[in-house]
Structures are given as structure tokens and as C-alpha cells.
């Protein structure tokens, strides 16, 4: 036998790891900074961005805060945000407890329908509400025939808050249900042994332990409510109610000569508020040792017996889902196949396929559908891979600024879609190479990837952290460099995470509209912006048909991915 000699594996390309890690980090920084820098800069500049270097001043802010109209805008925004948050959180927490902990009949199905709003955009849900519960909506008119008057008015802040809350409830529900499932059941058992009834134990032990999940959800709900566009635009504007996002929309797009300074200042302000909220969230959750429930054995919490309340609770949940989710979606579908939807005429007498015929005969409509599918597929895949590499650099490398990179990659949570759109639009103005993407769908892909970096990162990280560290360490010890380890060991190992992250991003990209509002151009439209502009024009029929088609595709994708590919998409 020949003498064994030590032969270290040769470094394939010296310095490759360094370049790869810094490349990924700098790309992330560039992506996140690109839309933000122009906005913040513009807010302090006395001249429009395209007009060369201006002088730094606070004039824009002085003008903004000097306007009584803007003060009303701020007030409306906070009122809507607060109401949405309260309602959405209450619904979400109640649903999490009822579905996660009790023996209410039909829990699985109810939990499933409850998260449907997550798959569709606020725009579509809002449209459904308008068709069914608007002033001339099907349900409103049906009830008005009996009551003599319309029982509600959606064109008010509480009215809008109800729609937003239904759209937001799934997020709270998912956080809280995960938290109830992970809690150590012996904590509740200990309360029972100490003499607490099942409901007292739930109320005094389990619900207080949900506090971190609730804090997280409350701030997230408020943040999302601040950046909503479609519902304020479509329900607020007719009633003369203005919000931060509609203010930006109006002054940035609708106005004949957009006031760059004012939009910049309002945008920077929105950015500041949301950043502050997210900072507050991390502060509030810092001392969460008081809520970490460390279980001895892996066991599920006991199911609470509702006894005689089983069916009333079921009826309550079923009514909520019927009225809040199913009827609006049904409204979208019905409106799509009728020429006129009203309780005065039986809908089967006005059935028509004209709206679909219309959609598929206009090139712009067809293009918007193809663009949306393309962006969701291609952009989603791109974003998934990029997020995976960022997550690997953050969690599995010796990269010095890993922690900073994580903060940067998750910062876009604080960037409302509309602002990401404005920011990339302005970035194209000040950074000529980027202008090459103007009038293409690539600028949309870029904006979407930036906006959903945190979503992807959040979906990817926990699954990456579950992979034992010794696996990549073993690869390093046998002679692979970091890049080889990342691409040959880690990426294949997190394949399930890649698939589910892709699925989540696909759904998000597919329904996104607010980031696109400022970036679309003829030839580069998407379904969401088409819906918005046709709804504003009052063409309910095509809106319904297009929305129905979008919802149908989304559901096909979600349930197909789940059942055929076994991908996890929200539980």
C-alpha cells in the first residue's frame, strides 16, 4: 500500500467567497437604498429631482405641516389605521383561540377559509364589498327593500376599517395560532391542577402568553393599514376622505404637474412613521423571555370543550366568513358573469360572458395578464434565489456584517408598496443606467423583489436555521470553500424552503398592485393596476371579470402547489 500523503483540496478560485459574500451584501444594499435615497433626498430639496441638484431646505416639510388639509389627512390615516388594527386583531385572536384550541365543529375548513383574504389583494376584496355591500350593492339593496333604508355606509372610516380588518385578520390569526400550538400545554395543566376552570386557565394563562404574537400582529396591522391604497382610494375619495397614500397618489400621479417636493416629504414622513413602528415592535418584543414557553415534552395543547356553545360559536364564525369573505368573492364572480347585478332582477336573466370576451379581445388586458404571470413566476423565482443567498450569508457564513445585512434585508417591511414605486420611478430619473428599464416589466420585478425581500427572508430563515450547522461545517472540513458549501450543500438541503418561499412570493407578486401604480407604462401593465384604473373609471364589469380570473388563477396555484407539490403556503 502506498504512503498516504496529505493533499488539501485546492482553492478553486482564491477569494471567491469574499467576492460572493460582498457581492450579495452590496446588491442587497443597492436594492434597498435605490428607492429610498431619492425620496429622502427629494424631501429636503427645493427643486424637483430631474432638475439637477437643488438646495437643501426644510421648505417641503414646512409646507406640508402648514396645510390644514394635510393635518386632516394625517388624522384620517391614523383613525383608519387604529380602527383596522383593533378590529383585525380582535378577529384574528378570537379565531386563533376558537380554531386552535376548542372543539368547535369544522375547525379545519373555517381556518382555511379564514386565510383566503391573504391570497387575494385588498383591491379584489374591496371590489367584492363594493359589489355586495356598496350603496347600490346586491346585499345592501336587498336589505333596503325590507328595512326601507340602507343599513350601513361603507364610504366612511369605520366602513373601510371593516373591509381592511377582514383583509388583515389572517395575519393575526396565523401568528396567534402558531403561538398557541407551540405553547407548553403543561402551563395550562398546572393552572387546572391549581384549581382553575378550563376557561379561567385559558383566560389567565394562555391568552396572556399570546402577548408577543399579539404585539407583533398589532404593529404589523397598523403598518399595513397605513400603506393601504385601494380601499382609501375607492371608498374614501368619493366621500372626500383623504389618506396619506391617496394624498401621495393624487399629488404624484393624478395632478397635472406633480409636486415632487411635497410628495417627497409626505413619502419620507410615511417612511419615518412606519420605521418607528417597526423599531417599537422590536423594542417591545425584546424582553420576551417572560413569554417564551419552554416545553418539556412535545405535546399539543388540550382541546377545550365548548359544550353547549359549540354550535353558537360555529355559527358566529361561519356567519363572519360568509359575510366577510365568501359573499364578497361570490359578488366578484357574479358581477363578472352578469351585465347588471341587482336584487331587482334575477341574476340568471342577465347572465353574460361579455366581460370575459371584452378582456380577452383587448391586447392591453391580455398583456396585463401575461405580464402578471411572468412577473410572478420569474420575479418570484429570482427573489427566492436571491433571498436564499442572502439568508445563507446572514446565517451561515463568517461574513462580518451579517447582522447588519439582515437588518437591511428586512427593512423594506417599512416601505409601503406605493413608496417603493415612487422611489424606483425617481431612481430611474437620477440614475441613468436604471432608466434602461423604463417602460419594461423589469423595473416592476426590481420593485417587487425589493418590497418582498423581508417576506421571503422571513419564510426562508426558520427553515434554514433548522439545518444542523455540522452539515456545512463538515463540508468545509473536507475541503469545500464557502461558495461550494452554500450552493452544493445548503441550497439542496433547503429545497422545501425554496419551494414554499417561492409559492408565497408568487402569490404576493401575483396580487401586488400598489408598488406598480407608479411604474407601469403602456405595454408593461399588470392585472392589479388594470383593475384599479378601470374601477376608478367605473367599469365594474371588466373589473369583476379580471378580478375573478385573478382569484381563480391564484386559487388554482395555491391548492395545486399544496396538493400536487406538497408545498406549505401559510399553514
Amino acid at each position: 500500500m502506498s504512503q498516504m500523503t496529505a493533499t488539501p483540496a485546492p482553492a478553486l478560485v482564491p477569494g471567491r467567497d469574499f467576492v460572493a459574500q460582498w457581492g450579495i451584501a452590496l446588491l442587497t444594499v443597492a436594492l434597498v437604498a435605490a428607492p429610498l435615497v431619492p425620496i429622502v433626498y427629494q424631501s429636503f430639496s427645493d427643486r424637483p429631482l430631474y432638475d439637477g441638484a437643488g438646495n437643501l431646505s426644510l421648505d417641503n416639510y414646512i409646507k406640508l405641516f402648514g396645510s390644514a388639509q394635510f393635518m386632516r389627512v394625517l388624522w384620517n390615516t391614523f383613525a383608519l389605521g387604529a380602527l383596522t388594527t383593533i378590529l383585525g386583531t380582535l378577529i384574528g385572536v378570537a379565531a386563533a383561540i376558537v380554531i386552535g384550541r376548542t372543539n368547535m365543529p369544522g375547525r379545519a375548513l373555517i381556518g382555511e377559509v379564514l386565510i383566503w383574504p391573504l391570497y387575494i389583494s385588498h383591491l379584489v376584496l374591496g371590489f367584492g364589498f363594493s359589489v355586495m355591500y356598496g350603496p347600490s350593492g346586491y346585499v345592501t339593496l336587498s336589505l333596503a327593500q325590507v328595512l326601507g333604508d340602507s343599513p350601513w355606509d361603507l364610504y366612511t372610516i369605520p366602513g373601510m376599517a371593516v373591509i381592511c380588518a377582514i383583509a388583515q385578520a389572517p395575519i393575526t390569526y396565523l401568528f396567534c395560532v402558531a403561538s398557541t400550538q407551540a405553547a407548553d400545554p403543561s402551563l395550562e395543566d398546572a393552572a387546572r391542577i391549581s384549581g382553575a376552570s378550563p376557561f379561567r386557565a385559558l383566560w389567565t394563562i394562555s391568552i396572556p402568553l399570546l402577548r408577543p404574537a399579539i404585539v407583533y400582529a398589532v404593529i404589523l396591522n397598523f403598518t399595513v393599514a397605513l400603506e393601504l391604497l385601494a380601499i382609501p382610494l375607492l371608498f374614501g375619495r368619493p366621500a372626500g376622505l383623504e389618506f396619506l397614500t391617496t394624498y401621495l397618489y393624487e399629488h404624484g400621479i393624478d395632478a397635472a404637474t406633480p409636486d415632487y417636493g411635497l410628495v417627497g416629504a409626505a413619502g419620507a414622513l410615511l417612511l419615518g412613521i412606519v420605521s418607528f413602528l417597526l423599531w417599537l415592535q422590536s423594542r417591545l418584543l425584546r424582553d420576551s423571555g417572560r413569554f417564551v414557553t419552554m416545553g418539556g415534552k412535545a405535546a399539543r395543547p388540550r382541546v377545550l370543550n365548548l359544550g353547549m356553545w359549540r354550535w353558537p360559536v360555529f355559527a358566529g364564525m361561519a356567519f363572519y366568513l360568509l359575510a366577510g369573505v365568501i359573499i364578497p368573492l361570490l359578488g366578484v364572480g357574479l358581477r363578472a358573469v352578469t351585465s347588471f347585478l341587482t336584487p331587482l332582477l334575477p341574476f340568471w336573466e342577465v347572465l353574460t360572458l361579455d366581460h370575459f370576451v371584452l378582456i380577452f379581445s383587448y391586447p392591453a388586458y391580455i398583456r396585463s395578464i401575461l405580464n402578471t404571470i411572468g412577473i410572478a413566476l420569474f420575479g418570484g423565482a429570482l427573489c427566492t434565489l436571491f433571498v436564499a443567498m442572502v439568508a445563507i450569508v446572514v446565517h451561515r457564513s463568517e461574513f462580518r456584517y451579517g447582522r447588519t445585512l439582515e437588518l437591511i434585508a428586512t427593512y423594506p417591511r417599512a416601505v409601503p408598496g406605493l413608496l417603493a414605486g415612487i422611489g424606483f420611478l425617481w431612481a430611474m430619473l437620477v440614475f441613468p443606467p436604471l432608466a434602461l428599464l423604463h417602460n419594461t416589466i423589469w423595473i416592476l420585478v426590481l420593485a417587487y423583489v425589493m418590497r418582498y425581500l423581508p417576506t421571503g427572508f422571513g419564510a426562508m430563515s426558520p427553515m434554514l436555521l433548522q439545518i444542523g450547522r455540522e452539515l456545512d461545517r463538515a463540508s468545509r472540513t473536507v475541503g469545500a470553500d464557502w461558495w461550494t458549501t452554500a450552493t452544493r450543500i445548503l441550497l439542496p438541503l433547503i429545497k422545501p424552503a425554496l419551494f414554499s418561499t417561492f409559492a408565497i412570493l408568487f402569490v404576493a407578486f401575483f396580487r401586488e398592485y400598489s408598488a406598480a401604480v407608479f411604474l407601469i407604462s403602456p405595454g408593461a401593465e399588470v392585472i392589479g393596476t388594470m383593475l384599479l384604473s378601470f374601477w376608478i373609471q367605473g367599469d365594474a364589469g371588466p373589473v369583476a371579470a379580471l378580478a375573478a380570473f385573478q382569484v381563480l388563477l391564484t386559487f388554482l396555484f395555491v391548492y395545486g402547489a399544496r396538493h400536487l407539490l406538497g408545498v406549505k403556503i401559510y399553514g
Partner: protein
Amino acid sequence: MAEVRIQGLVKRFGPVVAVDHVDLTIADGEFLTLLGPSGCGKSTTLAAVAGLDRPDGGSIQVGDTVYYDSASGAFLPPERRNCGLVFQSYALWPHMTVAENCTYPLKLRRMSRADRQRRVEEALALVEMQPYAARYPHQLSGGQQQRVALARTLVYRPTILLLDEPLSNLDAKLRERARTWLAQITKKVGLTTIYVTHDQIEALALSDRIAVMREGRIAQLDVPRVIYEQPSDPFVADFIGSSNFLKGTAEGVTGDALSIRLDGGRTIQLGLRPGISSGQRVTVAIRPERIAVLAPGEAAPGEGSLLDATIAERSYLGSRWMYHLEVGPTVLRVETPRELPVGAVHLHVPPGAALVFAGEEAPEA
């Protein structure tokens, strides 16, 4: 009087019978340990007494109170049983301070504020945790959490005390101290106690009586000394103090000694055991710490049998040596402070060092 009477207790999980007709009576003030390997049904029995699991048959009565009776369908929910249970994970409520954790059961009992305060102070003083009253559980060490868990249980003066492996989450050194401490406390409060553990040393040190459980049944129920010295079957012998097992055939009775021909040819003289007759196949359990390893030619230290053996392997354990001894077809593990070279030796087995069981059923070595 809180005497616990468990009769014909059955608990199934699907097709698995976790507790199989267990009968157990625990006297007032007695400390009884349920001992056994994981999956033997000891924790399930405890959960049934606590009311956390609803059994499938039998009855549980504590004092005059019926906790459960399958015949009448009676089932008292856990909160009405007034049991005290210390969980393996301690189950301290993380969002409450130490004092709040202890106050909670008293609030449920609608005690006045002044009484509550006094009781909590007493309980915390008993476990020497008064200075930590304002801390949150995550700010305490494992040993401190365990004390608080006990205080929270004792604060409302439960009828009986249930302890579910309360020491298993402590590290070895701390466990020993906590064991002594626990023995003192339980003696002081004098409650009827059921203690669940898989650690035979804890069981031997703490208990008035031990019930060794196996596959949902009680294999032996007796005081620690009898359990150790006269295990009822090879399983108990193995579980309490790791025995070595040799197979053989009973040959005959001479005086008060039983002679057994071991497989492989050697004969061993042991203390008489009722129920063993000549010609019967038997299993001999040998306590490794009771036998002596002798160098070839060395005189036997006293009465007993000598066996030929070969040291096949040895390892140094610090204060002692561990030898793998070949005795015929079997390998025995023996620990002794003596250092001996690999090779032929003699084994000295005094009459009390080995027990004979009928049959050939022996646990895996």
C-alpha cells in the same frame, strides 16, 4: 385522611394499553414511588390521579372523595381535585413573577389579600426562595425554578402531592442536593405523595414504598430494601441495580442451599428459593458489586461458590476497574477496585449475591 385507593385502573391510547388494571393503595402520609422505564405507564397513572387524562376503566378515590369511577361514570375535573402536581418541566407561568405564580391558586380559592400574602411568604420561606419573590421564572436557575414549582404546589395545601420526575431536569450534582432537600420537605409537610421517576437511586432514597412498573402493570410493590434485595423477577432485578444474568438448570437442594448447574458446566451454590424444583430451567441474577474477582490460586474470602472466568476486556474508570468476564457462554460485567491482568481468574459468588428465578426470561444485557 388522604388515603389514595386506585382500583383496576386502565388507560388505553388507541391500541396500546398504557395502564393495565393497576391496583394500588397508598396510606395517609405515605411516600410512594412509581418506578420504571419510559413507557411503563407510571406518568399515565399519575396523570390519571391528577385528572389530566380520563382513564378508560377502574376507580380512583382519595380520602372520601371519588376522583374517578368507571362504574358510575364519575370524573372529577382536575381543578376540583385539590391535588398538588409538580411538573417535570416545572410549568411555571412565564408571564407571572414567582410571587404571582404562588398567589394564583390562592386567588382561585378566593382567599383574602392578607391571607394570600401570608401563605405565599410561608411557602416561599419553606423552599428558601423568599428573596426571589419578584423575579420572573426565566431569571431563575433550574434548581430555583424547581423550588418555586414546589412552593406553588404546597401554597394551597393540597390533599395529596404528585411529583412527576421533578429532578430529571437538573444536572447530576444539583440533583443529589435537591433529592436530600426534597426528602426533608416532604417529611416536614407529611402529605401523601406519589412520586414518578425512572431513576432507581431517587426511588430507593426517597420512598416509603416503591411500585416498580412494567408494561402498564405493577411488577413489584414493596419497601425499598426488599425491592433491592429480593426483586420478584429478573426485570426488577435488572432495573434496580443492573444485574448480570446466567442461565442454568436447578440440580438439587443440599441443606439450605440450592445447587445450579450453569450452562457451560460450572455449578453454583445459592440461597434456597421457594418454588424452584430440581431439573427446572432457571435464570441466575448476580449483583455485580457483591462478587469478588480473585487472581488464580487466591483463597476464597468466605463461603460461596467459585467460578472459572476469563477477563476478556478491562477498562479503567478512575476509582475502579470494569471487567468483562467470560463465564462459559455468557459475559458478566463486574466493577472492582482491584487491578488484574487480562487472562484467567476466579469469581467468588457469596450465597446472598445472586438470586434465582424460574424460567429463562432475562432482560437484554
